[in-house]
């Protein structure tokens, strides 16, 4: 799908695996999972067995010692199959690294191997109903009581929570310390008293991906489950991880708009209207020329971002730029392409319609694009 000098033969074998997995293990069940509004827990175990999980993780914990391109390949193959609605990367490339990078040795030993096999699935809980992206305004509290913490609060928009075995929860351990009062806890929700899984929220798109509210009422969390073992590091950890998380979102957005443009070109070459192929109408051709230009520009930009990332120069501002710009253009290109499909573009069976519904989340998730612009604006 993608020409890149970075893909090795090993990457291409991996791609074949991924493609086969999606075709055999995901697509046949898509409708059922959409109806359930979540994937089954067994999917994660299958994905683990197929080597799709935690590809970047150290082999010490069962990972594949891979790179960002493994994540990219999964995104590419999901996109090709128009199965972007489930974020595999959330488990492998967003949550697992918190434990691998910041966890204590025993936390790593306990959680990472099971994440790699899919025995454990995970979620991460930052956003709160009242606060949106404002981490400073976080109300969830963790009060130390001997050898454990009591966690109380509420979270929302939490992906993967319905099947999660544990959830990485951000909470204030010191309410007066602002950002420095935030800590992360690994909450084993299967055995946590006082924890309640709220509604699985109905969304515009991304139907297979569950999105839930969470309630914590004096949930007993052992002190050893404080990530990294030291209080007040949570905000710092989150901030450190954000550029990579946003880069992954940008990867997804770019690949998605490329797929949309390709589908639209193919359709426009095939479809006949007013005695000509659609692409022979100049206005349609110009729309496609614009869409192809944007995707080409976006790909060049993405490659630059990945290069910077590899060189450890991809900072918060760069992450914010990549995230807002690519998700914005992704929606624009998809909307423009959808229009070319006419009435068929509005039918859910058409991939472009699903891309349109799914992609809209990109401008909101991971910090709204307004938050991104604010961040960039402050750094001018």
């Amino acid at each position, binding site marked *: 799908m993608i020409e890149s000098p970075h893909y090795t033969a090993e990457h291409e074998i991996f791609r074949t695996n991924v493609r086969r997995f999606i075709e055999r293990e995901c697509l046949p069940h898509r409708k059922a999972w959409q109806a359930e509004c979540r994937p089954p827990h067994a999917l994660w175990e299958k994905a683990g067995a197929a080597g799709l999980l935690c590809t970047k993780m150290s082999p010490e914990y069962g990972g594949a010692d891979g790179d960002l391109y493994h994540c990219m390949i999964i995104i590419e193959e999901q996109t090709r199959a128009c199965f972007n609605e489930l974020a595999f990367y959330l488990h492998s490339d967003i949550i697992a690294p918190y434990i691998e990078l910041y966890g204590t040795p025993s936390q790593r030993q306990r959680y990472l191997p099971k994440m790699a096999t899919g025995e454990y699935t995970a979620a991460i809980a930052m956003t709160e109903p009242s606060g949106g992206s404002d981490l400073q305004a976080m109300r969830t509290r963790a009060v130390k009581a001997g050898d454990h913490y009591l966690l109380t609060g509420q979270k929302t928009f939490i992906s993967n929570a319905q099947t999660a075995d544990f959830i990485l929860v951000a909470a204030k351990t010191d309410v007066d310390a602002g950002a420095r009062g935030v800590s992360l806890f690994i909450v084993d929700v299967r055995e946590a008293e006082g924890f309640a899984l709220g509604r699985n*929220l*109905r969304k515009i798109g991304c139907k297979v991906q569950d999105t839930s509210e969470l309630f914590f009422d004096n949930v007993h969390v052992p002190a050893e489950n404080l990530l990294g073992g030291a209080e007040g590091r949570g905000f710092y950890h989150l901030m450190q991880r954000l550029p990579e998380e946003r880069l992954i979102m940008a990867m997804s957005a770019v690949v998605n708009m490329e797929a949309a443009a390709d589908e639209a070109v193919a359709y426009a070459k095939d479809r006949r209207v007013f005695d000509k192929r659609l692409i022979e109408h100049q206005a349609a051709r110009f729309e496609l020329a614009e869409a192809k230009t944007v995707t080409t520009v976006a790909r060049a930009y993405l490659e630059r971002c990945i290069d910077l990332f590899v060189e450890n120069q991809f900072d918060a501002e760069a992450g914010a730029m990549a995230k807002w710009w690519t998700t914005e253009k992704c929606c624009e290109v998809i909307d423009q392409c959808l229009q070319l499909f006419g009435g068929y573009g509005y039918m*859910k069976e058409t991939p472009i319609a699903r891309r349109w519904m799914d992609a*809209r989340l990109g401008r909101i998730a991971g910090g709204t694009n307004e938050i991104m612009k604010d961040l960039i604006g402050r750094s001018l």
Partner: protein
Amino acid sequence: MRETARRFFVTECLPHRDAWDEAGMAPRSIWRRAGELGLLCSRVPEQYGGVGGDILHSIALIEEQTKTGVVGPMLSLHSDVVAPYILHYGSEAQKKRILPQMVSGEWIGAVAMTEPSGGSDLRSMTTRARRSGGDYLISGAKTFISNGANADIVVLAAQTEAGISLFLVETAELAGFARGIPLDKAGQWSGDTTELFFEDARVPESALLGGVEGRGFAQLSERLAEERLLTGVVAVSAMEQAIADTIAYTRERQAFGRSVLDFQNTRFRLAEARTEAIVCRAFMERCVRKFAAGKLDAVEAAMLKWWSTEQQNKIIDSCLQLHGGYGYMLEYPIARAWLDSRIAKIYGGANEIMKEIIGRSL
């Protein structure tokens, strides 16, 4: 009338929206209820069972329905698109027979123009009606037919010897007629949309609308200006409602210690949206006045259609964004408005067709 409509949509439709969404259509019973309340075909004259209202009645109904976000039952299509075909081109017998049943909601109407292969290109129509004795035999397939799953009366476009003609097809017990299952759409879930199939379906000669073959294209063109005008009415109502919802939401919602509405970006986006909605309304109302005076031409109707639906989508997208994560959740009206509005740039003639109509008139 406006008050009756509002109550009807809020108390008798809105509570069932989720169920109707699930079913992919509104039940026939709600059509009869709408008829009972006098909400159907308000412009049909009294002699055919209506109340003889004017375009403002239609607009009031559309506005109230749009404000509640209830998509199905698609009353306006029935009242403002189908009924006028019969009223303008039907024989006296057809009017007497069909209109009262449409007013009461016993019969539901639909229009069948679009074909799977043709989109907005009427000339490439392949559905044919050929004479057979005193009847016509109709064969072909239609798609994207709103109200198609329930329609008792279909205004059908087909090729005849003398060109495109319209037929009033009664679907009850019509041999050779079949409906597809409702299409699974990105939005407008309670508005049923289906394919219709005709295979040597036999209709009497009197079903030919207007009594002369080959007038279909002219009849469609005449009626389309009205349909596009009303699309503009929906668009303006939808954007106004979205703005109102968003002002309320952002005023309430707190972020970084203040109301989201207090951020300059929020205020600017809403200032733009409100201005654009006011501009759009001014244009729409001028078109309504022209229509009432019999002076709305195809070009201006095309301008209203593409402009208003473009603005509608742009504004609703921008309003959704101001809702943050909640904007993506279906329980918020803005999420549904976003899904429901996208088709407006496509139906009733895609916006590109509108630009072609305008461009050719220059």
